């Protein structure tokens, strides 16, 4: 009995130790081979071959490829790499395996279109993906919304954006903002309002918490950009009226241009600089803002956390 117990204990100890050792070794091997493994990940690029090998279980395979595309984008983005060469083929295989996988078009285009490091810098590939998606899912208003978004943000093609929003506006279950977006695109008016509407529609049309968070960040940034633009116009008016720049926000308040001390969307007061520019107090606290930054500062981007980056898309 004692001997049996001893054997059991030794076997358990060896099992646990070898398991822990195995995990540690794999971890070390992964760290050593991270680059090459990621690049070699796409063994098969032919969706036809994959479809045959899947024995008809294409839905599950498409889900796996879509998850792989999300992870690949997240990994490259996290590593700060501008090399997204596998992204387009991964998305092509995914959508060929399951042409009805709408999230792959919606978010895949967002990964492909923006310039690195936010995206792969392949707006043409994003456009092809969206067109393929619409061809196979002509009743999905979200795809027309994404197509319009793409034309608006990446190609600045307002006529085509208006056309996409107008087509999406006619589909069942469409968002109430679609016809308004179509009209705004046609007029090419009210940049802030249009962008706000686009991000608000993005917020409304997804249940994913991180995508919604990303849309909220953009809405806050738009609010800050609009505030800074308006305040700088006010400063300019003050200068024209008084022949000098205001020394403080108090001067603008006393002159009746503003009421109190205006604050950014995070509740921090805007700063009036000696040269008349308006700056936000903590530029890093408002992601994506393009105005109110200290001279030379790039618009702040999300910190590199793989999932957050991946899921936030790249807009």
């Amino acid at each position, binding site marked *: 009995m004692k001997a049996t117990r001893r054997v059991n204990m030794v076997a358990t100890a060896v099992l646990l130790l070898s398991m822990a050792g195995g995990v540690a070794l794999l971890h070390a091997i992964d760290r050593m081979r991270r680059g090459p493994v990621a690049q070699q990940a796409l063994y098969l690029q032919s969706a036809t071959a994959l479809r045959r090998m899947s024995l008809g279980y294409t839905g599950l395979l498409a*889900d796996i490829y879509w998850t792989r595309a999300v992870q690949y984008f997240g990994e490259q983005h996290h590593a700060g790499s501008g090399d997204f060469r596998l992204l387009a083929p991964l998305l092509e295989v995914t959508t060929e395996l399951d042409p009805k*996988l709408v999230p792959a078009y919606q978010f895949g285009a967002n990964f492909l279109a923006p310039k690195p490091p936010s995206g792969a810098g392949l707006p043409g590939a994003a456009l092809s993906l969206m067109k393929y998606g619409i061809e196979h899912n002509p009743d999905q208003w979200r795809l027309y919304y994404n197509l319009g978004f793409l034309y608006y943000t990446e190609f600045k093609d307002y006529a085509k954006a208006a056309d996409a929003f107008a087509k999406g506006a006619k589909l069942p279950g469409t968002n109430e903002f679609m016809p308004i977006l179509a009209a705004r695109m046609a007029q090419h008016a009210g940049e802030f309002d249009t962008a706000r509407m686009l991000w608000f529609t993005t917020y409304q049309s997804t249940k994913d918490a991180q995508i919604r968070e990303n849309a909220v960040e953009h809405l806050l940034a738009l609010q800050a950009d609009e505030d800074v633009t308006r305040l700088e116009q006010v400063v300019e008016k003050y200068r024209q009226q008084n022949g000098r720049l205001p020394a403080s926000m108090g001067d603008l308040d006393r002159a009746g241009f503003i009421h109190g001390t205006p604050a950014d969307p995070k509740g921090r007061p805007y700063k009036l600089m000696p040269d008349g520019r308006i700056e936000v107090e903590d530029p890093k606290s408002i992601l994506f803002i393009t105005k109110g930054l200290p001279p030379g500062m790039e618009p702040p981007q999300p910190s590199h956390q793989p999932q957050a980056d991946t899921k936030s898309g790249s807009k």
Partner: protein
Amino acid sequence: MNSRVGYIAFNTFREAVRDRVLYNLIAFALLLSGAAILVGEISIDIERLVVVNLGLTAVSLFGVVIAIFIGIGLVSKEIDKRTLYTVLSRPVRRWEFVVGKFFGLTGTLVVNTFLMAIGVLLALLYVAHKFEKMDVWVLVALYFIVLQFLIVCALALFFSSFSTPLMSAVFTFALFVIGSLAEDLRGFARITAGVGGWIATAIAYLVPNFSALNVISQVAHGDAIPGRLILYNSAYALLYAAMAISGAVLIFQRRNLK
């Protein structure tokens, strides 16, 4: 059903349960609950799709593996253990033995599928928080998977009626693979001319058509399954299983068991 067939079927089911076949449900539950929780973390917007795709694919593949590995041993095990002689020395006909075994194995798989279906539906409820109208098509896909099992069970039994367990497994699995590509095969037959075309057409219609029974991708997107397809698939699976079981009975009737 003939009472002797019923007894053999019940005993086959009991034996499968005793052989811990239903333990696969534990692996299935772990797989599905793990996927339902993890996918939301590592992918985007496909939680429901993964539960349906992974759940139904697992139900199908687990079932096919069980059908093949139990089906191939149904006859040979009885011969090896010499229990077949005891059974046949009683007033049990050979065809009753074969048909009883078929119903027993099919029953095991139906129970297994029923329990897995509950798992799939619970996982769906977990990710979507409520059932939707389109979830009814998931039940249709599960029904088609059961039809698939009818054919695989019948084939496994057919091959095991004259071949060794290993060869029966190889034949059945090969037919499952070919049958899953049946639509491609018929497409190939259509574009092939002459004798090759005739041979390809004959093979394409002889192998079981599993591709029409696989509607997992469609139901994952909530696409409706036409009532006519449900009717045709049901009739096709019953006819194909009847054909394979008849073949098994014919061979087993003539088999020298000495």
